[in-house]
């Protein structure tokens, strides 16, 4: 049996074509922060549709968690790349030519490009006020600090952290930084919109059809059921195709044109649309001389760029993942989501956890070094166990951290030698609370059609959910159909994020199949997962269940050039139960390879607020030549276990495994990516340290 992926038959959003469709292009601010004056479009030829701030000033604002965006930048442009006008024309060439004929007056304003500096009292304010969104993507208590650039502050407190440090015999402290990254999904963002009798229809690559529909309804002041979102499969997304991207601009152009309009981003525009949050993380970790952890203090600054998007959620997850899978009686975490005049940052595979896992797991190895302990033993000694309460107060079940960690250690021959080797263990949260519905329709030809909002972006969700449906229906999977999600036809679902879909849709399917068997033609099932955290104390339920994993790496370093070669990379991930073996393997391998890019070379370079490497030549992503010869992984299962999502868990362990492997050689690195310069600097510092008399 062939597959549409090998015949080229897959139709992505960029391939959607409607009769009479126009092509759109976006004009962007060249300045990182500027007041927008006159927008002169008089030179644009007749017949070209032009959208200016004046056209959108009366429309509603939007934003998944903070309502901080207008369809175009109206009063101020807040980053170099902020859309200020758009055009639609019969051909891209005409659209490009028209764009060059628009003249915009700017008055430059002071800018801020660093999240820590943006928290200074005299830093320029990116937004005057922070209004929490009504979108159900704003699902937790968001704590904007009005009059500052902090749009969310999350705090977690357990015990008395200062008392814990007072009791500690060994304390390590370090500041870690992680760079911005570009998702670099191969298919660019693409959206097509048309209006039919006052109703808006959008075909777009999105992981969040219902959140998108809700925000568009707010923009246009129409009911949500007056909007239809159709989600073709995506050529990769990794978190980038979430919430409103191009859809509001394309919908406005289509309304003004009275014709369908399509926008496909140019590659360089991807770096101006959404990246991963750069972060600064300060960790202080205290223990007894016997290795028992006593206290941990973590401060995080997540740079969300000029618009919040889901940055508050990212900062919150950074914060609640910061304690890590250990018994620590005294914990204090403060995590801030901070505006800067940089392109917006949002969801990215690993969602905040990559950043704090890097910092926390490097700190664990620093502690092991100070204690002269085996980093594996130190971790095993302190790991959370079945029935323990996490720092949030929630009780943990089906705890598999030790199993993951031991599998990772065994894979790289930890017990034979620790030289050039590093380990990491992590817990990763899943969207909580959340809700999912699925319907199944039986046809006379013996096929079953799933009505399900889960979006396909290469992660194999359609295949996994179809396999689960076939198993429950007791039919061959060839008889299960899974058409492109269409909000006119599918039941509500929170969104396709946080590696939740196979698990939650799998549960909803059980009820849907039971309902179908009772009623004959159609069955419906729904699952609602309660929970959530108090944003001021961090107490509650952070994650209905936790994704658990571990990583291990073996490296070789050229100390003359600073080049790091990863010889063997391993991830051990708790799968509970594997639904689609090949798909599960691909998710692990893909996460690890993406994690290698994060570890060794990916960074969004900024100079004076401008992205300077917005192309796939200067911004490198891993190729065949970057994959270690040994790239291995485990999918750990247990009889009777629930399905655990696998889409992201193997990414966050990669950077600390490599960083800790360098640490085993006395090369102490704190920043991602690990540049050759940083390695050479660490080699020099190691030599300096050795020269100090004992």
């Amino acid at each position: 049996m062939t597959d549409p992926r090998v015949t080229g038959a897959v139709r992505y959003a960029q391939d959607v074509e409607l009769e009479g469709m126009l092509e759109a292009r976006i004009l962007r601010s060249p300045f990182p922060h500027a007041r927008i004056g006159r927008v002169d479009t008089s030179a644009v030829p007749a017949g070209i549709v032009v959208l200016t701030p004046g056209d959108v000033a009366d429309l509603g604002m939007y934003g998944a968690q903070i309502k901080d965006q207008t369809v175009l930048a109206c009063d101020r442009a807040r980053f170099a790349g902020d859309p200020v006008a758009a055009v639609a024309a019969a051909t891209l060439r005409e659209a490009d030519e028209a764009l060059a004929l628009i003249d915009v007056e700017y008055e430059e304003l002071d800018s801020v490009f660093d999240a820590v500096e943006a928290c200074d009292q005299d830093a320029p304010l990116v937004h005057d006020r922070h209004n929490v969104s009504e979108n159900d993507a704003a699902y937790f208590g968001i704590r904007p600090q009005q009059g500052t650039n902090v749009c969310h502050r999350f705090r977690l407190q357990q015990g008395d952290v200062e008392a814990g440090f007072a009791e500690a015999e060994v304390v390590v402290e370090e500041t870690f930084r992680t760079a911005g990254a570009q998702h670099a999904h191969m298919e660019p963002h693409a959206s097509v919109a048309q209006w039919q009798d006052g109703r808006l229809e959008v075909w777009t690559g999105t992981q969040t059809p219902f959140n998108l529909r809700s925000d568009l309804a707010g923009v246009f002041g129409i009911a949500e059921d007056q909007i239809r979102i159709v989600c073709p499969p995506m050529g990769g997304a990794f978190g980038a195709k979430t919430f409103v991207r191009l859809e509001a601009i394309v919908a406005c152009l289509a309304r003004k044109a009275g014709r369908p309009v399509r926008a496909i981003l140019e590659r360089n525009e991807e770096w101006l649309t959404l990246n991963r949050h750069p972060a600064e993380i300060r960790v202080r970790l205290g223990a007894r001389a016997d290795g028992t952890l006593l206290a941990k203090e973590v401060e995080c600054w997540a740079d969300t760029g000029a618009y919040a998007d889901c940055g508050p959620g990212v900062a919150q997850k950074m914060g609640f993942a910061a304690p890590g899978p250990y018994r620590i009686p005294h914990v204090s975490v403060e995590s801030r989501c901070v505006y800067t005049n940089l392109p917006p940052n949002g969801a990215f595979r690993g969602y905040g956890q990559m950043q704090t896992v890097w910092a926390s797991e490097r700190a664990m190895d620093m502690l092991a070094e100070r204690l002269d302990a085996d980093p594996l033993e130190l971790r095993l000694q302190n790991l959370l166990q079945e029935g323990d309460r996490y720092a949030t107060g929630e009780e943990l079940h089906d705890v598999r951290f030790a199993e993951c960690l031991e599998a990772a250690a065994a894979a790289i021959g930890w017990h034979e030698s620790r030289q050039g080797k590093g380990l990491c263990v992590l817990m990763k949260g899943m969207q909580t609370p959340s809700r999912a519905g699925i319907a199944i329709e039986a046809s006379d030809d013996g096929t079953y059609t799933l009505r399900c909002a889960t979006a396909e972006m290469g992660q194999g969700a359609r295949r996994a959910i179809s396999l689960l449906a076939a198993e429950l229906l007791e039919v061959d999977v060839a008889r299960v159909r899974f058409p492109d999600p269409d909000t006119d036809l599918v039941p509500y679902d929170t969104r396709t994020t946080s590696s939740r879909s196979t698990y939650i849709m799998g549960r909803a399917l059980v009820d849907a199949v039971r309902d179908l068997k009772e009623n004959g033609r159609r069955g419906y099932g729904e699952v609602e997962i309660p929970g959530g955290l108090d944003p001021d104390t961090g107490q509650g339920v952070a994650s209905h269940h936790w994704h658990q994993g571990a990583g291990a790496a073996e490296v070789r370093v050229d100390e003359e050039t600073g080049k790091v070669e990863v010889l063997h990379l391993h991830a051990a991930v708790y799968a509970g139960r594997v639904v689609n073996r090949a798909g599960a393997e691909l998710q692990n391998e893909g996460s690890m390879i993406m994690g290698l890019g994060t570890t060794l070379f990916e960074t969004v370079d900024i100079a004076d607020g401008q992205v300077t490497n917005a192309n796939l030549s200067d911004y490198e992503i891993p190729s065949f030549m970057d994959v270690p010869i040994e790239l291995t992984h485990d999918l750990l299962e247990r009889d009777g276990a629930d399905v655990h999502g696998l889409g992201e868990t193997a990414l966050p362990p990669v950077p600390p495994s490599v960083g800790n492997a360098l640490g085993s050689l006395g090369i102490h690195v704190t920043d991602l990516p690990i540049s050759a310069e940083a390695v050479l600097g660490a080699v020099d510092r190691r030599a300096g340290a050795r020269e100090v008399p004992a």
Partner: protein
Amino acid sequence: MRIAFTANGKGVEVDARSDEMLLEVLRRDLGLTSVRATCGIGVCGACTALVDGEPISTCLLLAPLVEGRQVTTVEGLGGDDPVQRGFVEAHAFQCGYCTPGMILTAKRLLEESPRPSEEEIRLALAGNLCRCGCYVKIVDAVRGAAA
């Protein structure tokens, strides 16, 4: 200008500007949407087509330069080519966006080197990027197709 060439075994004639790239012509005039734009600068391989059997980045090849030449895309392989079968059997894809370019590049490799080593496969495909990170299984797919 008129450009006449052979696309997937059929003679075609298209009307294009002299400064247009083959990628635009294949997608717009011939509906060959397996040829996909990603980097736009010839580094990612998603727009690969075979021109007289050689893998070429069509985002950088001026359309008039294929006058009289043979252009092949995966639409022309029929679905049961050994390399396509190798990819299906090894599950060597996720989103599928880069897959056509991978298949065409691998096809040329196997013509030149019917039993390539893993190192040869990696080198031959180094100019084709897969952000989903299917590289391990793509190597398996090419080996499977060679077997």
